[in-house]
């Protein structure tokens, strides 16, 4: 870890202003991802702005009938919140499918949205990685890629977004609220929050310099069976090979997003009209144009079969 300075600002806007003003500054909340990356010198901030003291840790009802989740609400608390459990089951289930109890106790809502890829080449500083070191190349494309993206990737990067929570937020049409250095606020639909890599894989999100997430809002609840199905190699702690977040109504219509397959939670709304026809009709459209590698081609079949299982569960 390289030496860094540290401060605790007194307001979100002040935090944003500090990070915007210092070229190598970063926010830190739970630190469950950032500290690991700093130890490996994959992230080398020179200044840390600790936002843990800023409040932002409440889950509140919105006038529109939804929920506003503070950026610092811990994963454990959010998953256990009675309103989330009752009305947004897909979110609670996704959170509990992620990481371990210890990590969920520390990890925050905003931090979880910002967790970086788990591509092994991103983690090995002796290997070329455009996300870690722009322009150095991508070792993963012809390398070991069983975990990596089958769609939405580019010639520059095939990393996946690794999280679970954001996949549920995507199917819930959540909105990310931010504040910037000048105190201005912005609402970013979660659909637009994570970027596809294109030729700039080092930029994970559409946040601007210094922009701080203050909350994630959920619209009013969507009726239906809320299911999160995470497929992984072991029952304990593991990243998703494929995950499905779905809300399925009694009539078989609904919404679905996929995790573990793309650089961001993957949802194609135009395919959802085919949900009553069954899994294949949907995944054919959702994964149209997929470019799997030899190692990860199984994910296409797995996504179809997992969605099939989710639809069966919804019918049951």
């Amino acid at each position, binding site marked *: *870890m390289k030496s860094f300075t540290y401060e605790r600002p007194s307001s979100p806007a002040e935090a944003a202003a500090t990070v915007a003003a210092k070229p190598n500054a970063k926010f830190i909340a739970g630190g469950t991802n950032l500290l690991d990356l700093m130890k*490996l010198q994959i992230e080398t901030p020179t200044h840390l702005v600790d936002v843990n003291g800023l409040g932002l840790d409440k889950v509140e009802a919105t006038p529109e009938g939804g929920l506003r989740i503070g950026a610092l609400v811990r994963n454990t608390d959010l998953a256990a919140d009675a309103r989330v459990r009752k009305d947004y089951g897909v979110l609670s289930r996704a959170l509990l499918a992620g990481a371990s109890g210890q990590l969920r106790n520390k990890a925050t809502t905003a931090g979880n949205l910002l967790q970086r890829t788990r591509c092994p080449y991103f983690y090995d500083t002796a290997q070329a990685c455009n996300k870690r070191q722009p322009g150095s190349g991508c070792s993963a494309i012809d390398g070991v890629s069983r975990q990596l993206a089958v769609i939405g990737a580019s010639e520059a990067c095939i990393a996946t977004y690794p999280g679970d929570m954001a996949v549920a937020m995507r199917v819930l049409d959540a909105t990310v609220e931010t504040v910037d250095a000048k105190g201005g606020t912005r609402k970013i639909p979660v659909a637009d929050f994570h970027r596809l890599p294109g030729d700039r894989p080092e930029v994970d999100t559409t946040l601007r310099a210094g922009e701080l997430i203050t909350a994630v809002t959920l619209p009013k609840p969507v009726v239906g069976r809320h299911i999160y*199905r995470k497929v992984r190699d*072991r*029952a*304990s702690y593991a990243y998703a090979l494929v995950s499905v977040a779905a809300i399925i109504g009694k009539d078989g219509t609904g919404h679905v997003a996929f995790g573990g397959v793309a650089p961001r939670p993957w949802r194609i709304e135009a395919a959802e009209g085919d949900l009553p026809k069954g899994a294949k009709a949907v995944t054919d459209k959702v994964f149209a144009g997929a470019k799997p590698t030899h190692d990860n081609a199984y994910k296409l079949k797995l996504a179809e079969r997992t969605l099939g*299982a989710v639809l069966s569960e919804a019918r049951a």
Partner: protein
Amino acid sequence: MKFDTPAGQNPIDKLKVVGKATDRIDGPFKTTGTAPYAYDWHDPKLKPAYGFVVGAGIAKGRIKAMNLTSAKAAQGVLAIVTAGNAGKLGKGKLNIATLLGGPEIEHYHQAVALVVAETFEQARAAAALVKIDYAEAKGAYDLAAVKDTGKPEKLGPAPADTSVGDFAGAFAGAPIQLDATYTTPDQAHAMMEPHASIASWEGDRLTVWTSNQMIAWAARDVAATLDMPQDKVRIVSPFIGGGFGGKLFVRTEAILAALGARAARRPVKVALTRPMMFNNTVHRPATIQRIRIGATPDGMITAIGHESWSGNLPDGKPEAAVQQTRLLYAGANRMTQTRMATLDLPEGNAMRAPGEAPGLMALEIAMDEMAEKLGIDPIQFRILNDTQVDPEKPERPFSQRNLVQCLRTGADRFGWDKRVSKPGQVRDGRWLVGIGVAAGFRNNQVTKSGARVRLDAKGMLTVETDMTDIGTGSYTIIGQTAAEMMGVTLDRVIVRLGDSDFPVSSGSGGQWGANCSTSGVFAACEKLREAVSQKLGFNSADAVFEDGQVRSGNRTAPLAQAAAGGDVVAEDTIEFGDLAKKYQQSTFAGHFVEVGVDVATAEIRVRRMLAVCAAGRILNPKSARNQVIGGMAMGVGAALMEELAIDKRRGFFVNHDLAGYEVAVHADIPHQEVIFLDEVDPISSPMKAKGVGELGICGAGAAVANAIHNATGIRVRDYPITLDKLLDRMPDAA
């Protein structure tokens, strides 16, 4: 003490302390944080500096140039050790690649420098400033591609090729034949505690606090590497957070700590970071195994052949995957063959039951496949082909062999009669459920082991031996042994381990530690009993040591009285004669596994496991059970998830951390049961015990594989069995 005739009645047979399920005596130290592991060793006088290892960024080639300028100038840096400034280094007997590389690079993450600084963070930051310019060379990284270049390679004393009868003819003529090829991947030890050492020089004397399974080997190889006399080296390793074979050897952090301490003129501590461990240290090599079995229609094996290919660095050893096939089943015509090809991957070496663990992963699927071909129950097929003698040398019996009883007991306890032999028939909700069995087999190795036992005036006993406790329970069974021998309770015994100042023991490896090290304590206690008897004026032959007293005829004296005039000390070493030549000594198990396979996603989850073990006298059923369930969990890991994924372009293991290299943990196995058969083996040792730790892994993986086949009808011959290998062949999910 020479052990060359089977043990008769001896004081251990009283079983007042030995054989009782006993909590670990070192447990409270561990749960209260007072057991100093190597990196935790805290002596305020030492004031150690911190070393950080720089690993090579290529797998094969040369360092063209190394620029240390900015690293040297970095804050807090005290010294930088490289091959260029370390002076001439030797090589330990058990090391293959050199522990400090450069300019030649032999494998990825081979250490090329140690940066020493005042703090760990400073050392790490400066290490990142070491600039290295490489000339990368082409290497061989794919076993399948180079397999046919493999050369015959001996397995220790055993030849590369073995042959009895006419295998080729018998196999060709067999009415029922199986010819199948299996693969096991490279695997990592992935023990919790990383390799860690603190080195301190006093003049020309070196002390290394380290984490090592074999103290005497470590002292020898540190001395050899640093080109210094062994008696100037002291190795201290009282607590070890898992080794699994990876700490049988001196590794780079110990040598670099010593070199760093010399360069910085103060003690230096070094731990490998987790991402360094997978490529810098050693691993279990991948294998390709071809098995051929020929049998009569009624299930008698007439021909059995096992060929294994593995790769390693030049001068490395092959994985001994055929080992168990020479001994496990009858069959008049048999062959094994071992080939090793050169690979430029990191060094392959011993891990978690080397040989049998991957060998049985193949052989015991083959037995299941053959039973299916024959239409015979897989347990029955194994029983039909049981042998009570070494099948290559029928004049040589097994000392004890209760495999059949293991299988029968297990079948009974596990509910084998409820298994539906036709695969894919049992459904429980979303799960296809299957049950599998495999035989477990691991040899019982014996090797000499010494100990020193001291009796003081308070009647306390202190045992000293360089034996190690790698989480296995050595402290406790050694204490139990001394207590039993001297007729005292366990709380009267202090056990001190893991110090090269103590008598040389067997060390911990190959599941030989428990039986051999306690036998060494037995021998020392026999001498102490004589000395005590003499002090008390008793005839040692008829003296009875019981309840803290020594009794002879109608006279009784407190044990402590013998030390009234000063401590009574005895030291001895158990040495094993040729009983291991006259008798085949092995341990046996029946492994039973129930799995569920998700009908849609093909996710595989173990539901329950049972191991029935026949391994001689069980010295402490609690710590033995702990060993066996740990082994079973490793078997599950090997079957379902453990694989070092190779980047075949650049020659390294890509998933080099515990997020990428998954192992089975508690949440992955809801229920495990272990049964020990009530058995003693007087041919093995005076303890009548055998190794047991590695028996848990041997066969467990194949039992998982066979259960998956029973659940789904899908036979996967390439480990690990991950869902992507099942998905295309899964039955329709609807």
